[in-house]
């Protein structure tokens, strides 16, 4: 049977070859080059997020498309991991599927370097002064730039900070300083932890470079650690990195929520909103989520800057922003949408329909100078702004490093390396391995790349 099977399979493969050649012969090459129009269909790849699905999409249909009747906007919504894969496929094969892509400061410089994005500063913003790019918050604008030009513009931005229950603190006779240290957080967590009822501090544990590693990286940075030294040698088993990781993992194991290795923003928001966390360290945008979803809890919530150790500040920096792939069709129409969705007028539109406290935060200085916004978001707006302004992705660590990025390393290999390390850390948090074992494996994973690969990358 096996020999005739081999024969049959060979026949099948040969038949496939013949057909493949035929198909290849009559198909035209690759994508259609983009003919630029200022009308037509604009397909936007976005991440699934309430600020987008509940605001940007309906407003696009009710306002933008009426304002520009020749433009039809279609949204393709993905989870974060799927979004990256879809976008990378699209831009690297020039398949012209998306006219607008939602990316962050991780992708923007890398794509710009590869020539995959339109230079928004020279192509569009220069001709459109009303866009007022100088209004964008400087760290955010810098993170989205390459060689001085903007290659994506921000839709919303975030840093990280601490949320705490004012009532629980008062009952325990504790005071949260405006700029706490991690040691203080640990002390507070120990005092407030009630196993089974309230966790002393809720922290991210889900494996993902944008999930648990986002939080852990800020701890590593402020403890004086780094991913790579100036010679691009991985430092994942250095004393500082190990100390920070031990601190983070033990903090979770002792005073954190149970099942932390599956928790990221969404799960922790639910936990905090249901009153199961005395403290929560996460994205600044959580303030908006708490205010809109759990208004009663919002009244009890206090805010503090991201905890530090050896550095002055330690919040992370992220922004979901919109870029236009190089040479895509309908570029001008795409820009009309991009500039609309990231404009000051858009903020006013959101405020009118959903209230000022629901406006996408963290992109423009004018928003934070707006008295109406200051009033509606008085509890968290100032600290959000100060957190973002306090970040410097070009110099994320105590010692100089050859990379940029606070809670990520802006190299192409980080997509997979970050996930590998994140999985090890999640294992340590779950208790299935020790921290030193996890870091040893992580160091091995990082060592599979040569310095030449990482720097040339």
């Amino acid at each position: 049977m096996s020999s005739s099977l081999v024969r049959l399979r060979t026949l099948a493969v040969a038949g496939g070859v013949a057909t493949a050649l035929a198909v290849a012969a009559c198909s035209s090459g690759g994508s259609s080059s983009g003919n630029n129009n200022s009308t037509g269909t604009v397909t936007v790849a976005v991440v699934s997020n309430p600020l987008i699905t509940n605001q940007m999409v309906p407003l696009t249909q009710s306002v933008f498309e009426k304002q520009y009747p020749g433009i039809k906007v279609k949204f393709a919504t993905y989870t974060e991991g799927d979004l990256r894969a879809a976008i990378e496929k699209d831009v690297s094969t020039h398949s012209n599927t998306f006219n607008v892509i939602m990316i962050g400061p991780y992708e923007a410089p890398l794509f710009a370097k590869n020539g995959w994005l339109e230079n928004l500063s020279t192509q569009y913003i220069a001709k459109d002064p009303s866009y007022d790019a100088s209004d964008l918050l400087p760290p955010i604008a810098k993170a989205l730039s390459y060689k001085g030009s903007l290659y994506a513009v921000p839709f919303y931005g975030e840093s990280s900070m601490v949320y705490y229950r004012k009532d629980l603190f008062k009952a325990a006779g504790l005071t949260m300083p405006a700029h706490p240290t991690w040691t203080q957080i640990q002390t507070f967590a120990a005092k407030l932890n009630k196993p089974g009822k309230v966790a002393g501090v809720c922290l991210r544990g889900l494996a993902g470079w944008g999930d648990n590693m986002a939080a852990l990286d800020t701890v590593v940075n402020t403890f004086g650690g780094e991913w790579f030294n100036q010679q691009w040698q991985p430092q994942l088993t250095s004393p500082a990195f190990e100390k920070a990781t031990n601190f983070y993992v033990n903090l979770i194991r002792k005073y954190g929520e149970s099942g932390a290795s599956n928790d990221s923003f969404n799960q922790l928001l639910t936990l905090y909103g249901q009153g199961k966390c005395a403290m929560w360290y996460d994205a600044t945008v959580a303030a908006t989520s708490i205010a809109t979803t759990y208004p009663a809890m919002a009244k009890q919530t206090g805010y503090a800057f991201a905890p530090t150790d050896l550095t002055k500040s330690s919040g992370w920096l992220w922004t979901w922003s919109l870029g236009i792939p190089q040479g895509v069709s309908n570029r001008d129409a795409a820009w009309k949408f991009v500039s609309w969705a990231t404009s000051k007028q858009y903020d006013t539109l959101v405020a009118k329909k959903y209230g000022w406290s629901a406006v996408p935060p963290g992109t423009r200085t004018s928003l934070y100078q707006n008295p109406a916004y200051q009033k509606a978001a008085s509890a968290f707006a100032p600290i959000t702004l100060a957190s973002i302004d306090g970040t410097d992705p070009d110099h994320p660590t105590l010692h100089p490093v050859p990379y940029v990025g606070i809670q990520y390393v802006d190299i192409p290999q980080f997509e997979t390396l970050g996930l590998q390390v994140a999985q090890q850390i999640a294992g340590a948090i779950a208790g299935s391995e020790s921290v030193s074992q996890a870091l040893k494996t992580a160091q091995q994973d990082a060592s599979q790349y040569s310095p030449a690969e990482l720097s040339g990358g």
Partner: protein
Amino acid sequence: MAVLETGAASTPQVGIQPRAASRRERWLRRLPLLPALIYVIVVTQIPFLVTLYYSFQNYFWNQPGGATFNGFSNYSTVFTSSAFRGALVRSVIMTASAVIVAMILGVAFAVLLDRKFLGRGVVRTLIITPFLVMPAAAALVWAGPMLDPNFGLVNYLLQPFGVHHVAWLSTFPLLSVIAVMIWQWTPFMTLIVLAGLQGQPPETLEAAKVDGAGALATFRELTLPHLRPYIELGILLGSIYLVNVFDQVRLMTNGGPGTATTNLPFYLYQQVNYAFDVGGAAATGVVTVILTIIVATFALRMFARVFQFEGADA
């Protein structure tokens, strides 16, 4: 199968063998097969060829420059990768345990459903529903409202038994994922075995009862052998589909914690969606095909009867 029952074995399975295999007769027989055959060849072998082609290329989606030839380098990475070996082992463990447990439960439930009781149709409907639910939906519902350590229904229902806020996906990740696989595929096994049970002729059962055989002995000596081809079919089909299970791993544990639930499809997914390593994934895929063909050839020897015209050994 007609064999074990009456002497109806004299009706051999239908198969009009060609008498004089004239060329015209042979081609007339092939004709109906050709549309499906050609279709499948074109649609599956072309991608396989392209996969083969890319397996010899260095092609990353996050790097400019397209595909460049790099010989067997992808293959050597596959064979020296402990991550690949781990994923392979885990795939085998997950598939084997899910298939075996699902089949055992399937037989048990089929026996239950074969009896008459009030509301039998309703119960059968309830039991088959997990198979009809969208796997992605099932995975997300299990990961969230069911198994959440703080809010999940499972912890709530197990509270009287002393279970206290277990973090299922962190502490028992493999068990949780396999449990969901079993939950979704037991109905499939149940239906197949139920079909077999309902095809069992009642005369032999009556005869056994008259002879004084107990229920257990009847089951062991008469029913199980009758069910054997059904069980084998269920195991074969279940294995083919379960070895490729992906949604549950991705949506429940994302392959973790660590790599505790990373099976082969998820490992490949990481290569494609995180490393953007099209070449490496292609090589891994080709190696997987070769391994699967080897395993399948052995397995099919065991299940040779499924392919026979004639019946089982008596």
